[in-house]
């Protein structure tokens, strides 16, 4: 395909995207001149270029659309649902042809459908013109014959022929239709004299095309459309000029090139690390090294930024979707978009497109009620679906919220029982939150009937799988009668994911953090007793539940391990399949750049890619869900396991830590993460120790009294916890375990003992997070003084 065609395809796609957005807006603001001009421009650009490139199918389709749009733009026709539907269908057709050109280089053939499409557009024009004609009559400063020419086919056929009498003069032939047309539009607006029109027409650079369209007259085409079509160039020109400003300062760049740049930057980062290591002893180099460091970091950020696109690229298709679905289901739905300029890596945008589409379908199909039901429940007849994107820490949140009926918890429970996704005994114990989680199980659907929209048993599990694939998370929140909110938590970039590096037989492997729930370390002497066997299947007792174990070295047929050596178990939850992965050892967590593998290696199935670590070594990235599936880790069992882990009689999970020689318990639900940092990173703000963490200031409780200890290079462990809306840190000497704690009752009164729990049969005090003082609010001001 030549450059010109490629450019044309890109431009047309963008034009159609804009058009789609505008068309759905048009429904709410039918007379909006700007919207109409924008839509007109998109179609007109396609028509203009196709003629040039010789795509006749596109040309005739867009021409028919242009005619209709011309009428709309000039106010001769009022946009209604029928017209908008027609234009949307036209847009789909144009897209189809563009796709065909993109794939095969040719337009493909579908004459009958094209003709039907054109006929439909013409019918729409006629219906509108007849109506407008009556209205327009009183104000029209147009002569009777002209109006007739515009409306009636026979007259119109004669009209274009008039210039034909002077066929010898090419110029004359061109002017005539323009003359008429200018008169049309101007007369309506300002009652301009017809005499001024010819002069204008002569200046018109676009005449050539109008003429050719005219000459190739398709008999069915009504005249007035010809007429209005031609009014366009003059009007559109200034608008195009204003739009030119952004085009001048931006540039289209091939994504492949950006990927390559990203790779090279990654390479540069590695080289920088090696240089820094090799030259650390030399003071002169250290300065240069630091500069290299800064420039590299800046460069990396810039390249990442270049890959970012606003979420509006994905959001823009939803007004149409909502409109079509709502019409199809007989519901009234309004879509509100928020945070459209939030930016996300291009590849991630692509990845959330389908999950979001699915979520919105669900909102409209299952969430929003029929208008009469809504009114009966005291809600406005029109339902609202809100799509919102915003930043939260190092993630972008995309929220789909509807004000519909909310999820029917008892129905979810019934369905889950009916499909055997959960047992009766468990279902009765489940909390509301647990029940909501059931919708993410494969094969779950509550739709009473299979509609064209949903209810085919593929659903939320696919949404979750897709989002988890890119390292994201899905949360759901629903209130009966008030609505449902689905939140997708998306990492800022796909190219870089947090992972834990593990060792097996001297080789590095990366485990994506998203699947990792906890880590267990076993000493030599514990392996025999803590790992139990049933006929060759290894199991680990995790808080009273048996967890299947997979030995990474055996799975990968690596040389067998020595019987007596320590090992670590990474406990993974891969899309609902829970298992422990036994590895030789753990290294640090690292942000890794995912590199694709060659096809022959992808076929192995256990690897999601490869990466180059900070120290220059390579690591294969494991695919936990593929490993679980291959090893036959069952989903239902795993799902049940997660589900009933919580409501167990009075057991809460705690992080058991040791700080300054004492044992203490932190409620696990509040623990955000555990960081190993050099002591020197803890800074003092007045008398308060603080830590800069993910770009924010974290007040610290120095429970381990590590600051009293002199060595600034020593590593210290900080547990980052959430206390309401704020985050706080606590230094600890050692993290001992995650374990269930039993509530204690005061003898005699039976009152719950506050601040104490029973862990490993020992009374342990629970750290009171609220007791850690907040930073003073004018703290920054004070520090500045």
């Amino acid at each position: 395909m030549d450059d010109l065609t490629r450019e044309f395809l890109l431009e047309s796609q963008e034009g159609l995207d804009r058009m789609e957005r505008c068309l759905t807006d048009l429904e709410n603001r039918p007379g909006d001149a700007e919207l109409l001009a924008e839509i007109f421009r998109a179609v007109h650009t396609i028509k203009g270029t196709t003629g040039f490139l010789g795509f006749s199918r596109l040309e005739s389709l867009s021409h028919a659309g242009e005619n209709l749009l011309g009428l709309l733009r000039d106010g001769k026709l009022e946009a209604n649902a029928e017209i908008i539907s027609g234009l949307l269908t036209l847009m789909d057709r144009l897209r189809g042809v563009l796709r065909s050109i993109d794939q095969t280089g040719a337009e493909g053939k579908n004459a009958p459908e094209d003709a039907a499409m054109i006929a439909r557009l013409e019918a729409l024009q006629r219906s509108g013109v007849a109506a407008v004609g009556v209205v327009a009559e009183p104000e029209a400063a147009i002569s009777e014959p002209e109006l007739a020419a515009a409306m009636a086919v026979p007259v119109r056929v004669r009209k274009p022929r008039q210039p034909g009498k002077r066929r010898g003069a090419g110029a004359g032939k061109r002017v005539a239709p323009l003359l008429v047309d200018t008169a049309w539009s101007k007369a309506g607006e300002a009652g301009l004299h017809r005499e001024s029109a010819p002069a204008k027409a002569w200046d018109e650079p676009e005449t050539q095309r109008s003429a050719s369209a005219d000459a190739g007259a398709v008999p069915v085409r009504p005249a007035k459309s010809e007429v209005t079509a031609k009014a366009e160039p003059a009007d559109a020109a200034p608008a195009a000029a204003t739009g030119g400003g952004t085009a001048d300062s931006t540039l289209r760049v091939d994504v492949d090139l950006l990927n390559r740049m990203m790779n090279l930057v990654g390479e540069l980062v590695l080289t920088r690390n090696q240089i820094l290591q090799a030259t650390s002893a030399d003071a002169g180099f250290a300065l240069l090294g630091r500069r290299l460091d800064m420039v590299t970091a800046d460069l990396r950020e810039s390249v990442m930024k270049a890959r970012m696109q606003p979420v509006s690229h994905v959001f823009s298709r939803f007004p149409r979707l909502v409109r079509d679905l709502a019409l199809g289901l007989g519901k009234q739905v309004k879509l509100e978009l928020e945070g459209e300029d939030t930016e996300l890596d291009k590849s991630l945008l692509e990845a959330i497109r389908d999950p979001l589409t699915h979520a919105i379908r669900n909102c409209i199909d299952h969430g929003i009620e029929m208008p009469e039901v809504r009114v009966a429940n005291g809600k406005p007849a029109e339902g609202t679906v809100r799509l919102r994107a915003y930043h939260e820490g190092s993630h972008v949140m995309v929220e789909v919220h509807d004000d519909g009926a909310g999820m029917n918890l008892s129905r979810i429970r019934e369905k889950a029982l009916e499909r055997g996704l959960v047992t009766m005994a468990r279902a009765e114990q489940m909390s509301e939150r647990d029940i909501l989680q059931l919708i993410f199980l494969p094969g779950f659907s509550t739709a009473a009937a299979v509609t064209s929209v949903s209810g085919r048993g593929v659903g939320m599990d696919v949404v979750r799988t897709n989002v988890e694939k890119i390292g994201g998370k899905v949360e759901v929140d629903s209130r009966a009668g008030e609505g449902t909110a689905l939140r997708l938590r998306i990492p800022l970039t796909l190219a870089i994911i947090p992972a834990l590096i593990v060792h097996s037989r001297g080789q590095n492997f990366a485990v994506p953090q998203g699947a990792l729930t906890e880590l267990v370390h076993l000493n030599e002497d514990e392996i025999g007793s803590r790992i139990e066997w049933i006929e060759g299947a290894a199991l680990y007792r995790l808080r009273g539940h048996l967890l299947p174990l997979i030995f990474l070295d055996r799975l990968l047929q690596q040389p067998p391990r020595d019987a007596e050596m320590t090992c670590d178990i990474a406990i993974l939850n891969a899309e609902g399949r829970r298992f422990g992965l036994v590895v030789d050892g753990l290294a640090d967590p690292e942000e890794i750049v995912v590199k694709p593998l060659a096809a022959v290696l992808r076929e192995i199935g256990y690897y999601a890619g490869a990466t180059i670590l900070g120290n220059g070594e390579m690591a294969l990235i494991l695919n936990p869900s593929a490993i679980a599936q291959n090893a036959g880790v069952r989903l239902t069992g795993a799902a049940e396991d997660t589900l009933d882990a919580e409501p167990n009689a009075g057991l809460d999970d705690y992080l058991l830590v040791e700080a300054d020689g004492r044992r203490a318990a932190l409620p696990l639900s509040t623990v955000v993460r555990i960081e190993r940092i050099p002591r020197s990173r803890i800074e003092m703000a007045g008398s308060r120790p603080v830590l800069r963490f993910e770009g924010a200031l974290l007040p610290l409780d120095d429970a381990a009294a590590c600051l009293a200890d002199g060595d600034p290079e020593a590593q210290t462990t900080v547990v980052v916890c959430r206390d309401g809306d704020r985050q706080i840190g606590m230094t600890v000497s050692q993290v001992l375990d995650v374990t269930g704690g039993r509530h204690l009752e005061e003898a005699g009164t039976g009152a719950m003992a506050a601040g104490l729990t029973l862990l490993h049969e020992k009374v342990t005090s629970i750290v009171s997070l609220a007791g850690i003082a907040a930073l003073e609010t004018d703290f920054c001001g004070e520090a500045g003084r």
Partner: protein
Amino acid sequence: MKDIAERKTEVCSVRVGDTWYGVPIAHVLEILGKPATQPVPLAPYFVGGLVHYRGEVLTAISLRRVLGMEAAPGPEDVLVFESSDGPFGMFVDSVGEVMQVSAAEYEPNPATLDSRRQSLFGGAWKLKERLLVTLEPERLHPMRLAAQAAAA
């Protein structure tokens, strides 16, 4: 006729075991001297491992493994080849020099060569001091080797 016979090709000589091979340099993107290697457990037999090449993770076949030979005693060099679906690498014991060979020196594979080698080698150039076996990268592409392994 004379023109064809005298047409020179530039080849890069590489050694595996006791045999020298010649690879037309038109297909060679780069030579990596003893790079760090990451083995891939469960990979097909002909894959030597992964090497780091210009910010990418490159899959490299091992000529020794392809020929069914024992593993090399020490670190190996890697030739990077271009192919229609991206570059791939090939481990060899060592890389020699770039030399010119002429079509007059070329001779097709002997009929007595085993079938695996028949399918891999293009023939040989008869140099004064030794034979240089012709290796064409397209015959060594991992996908082709995988297809052959599946057929066997």
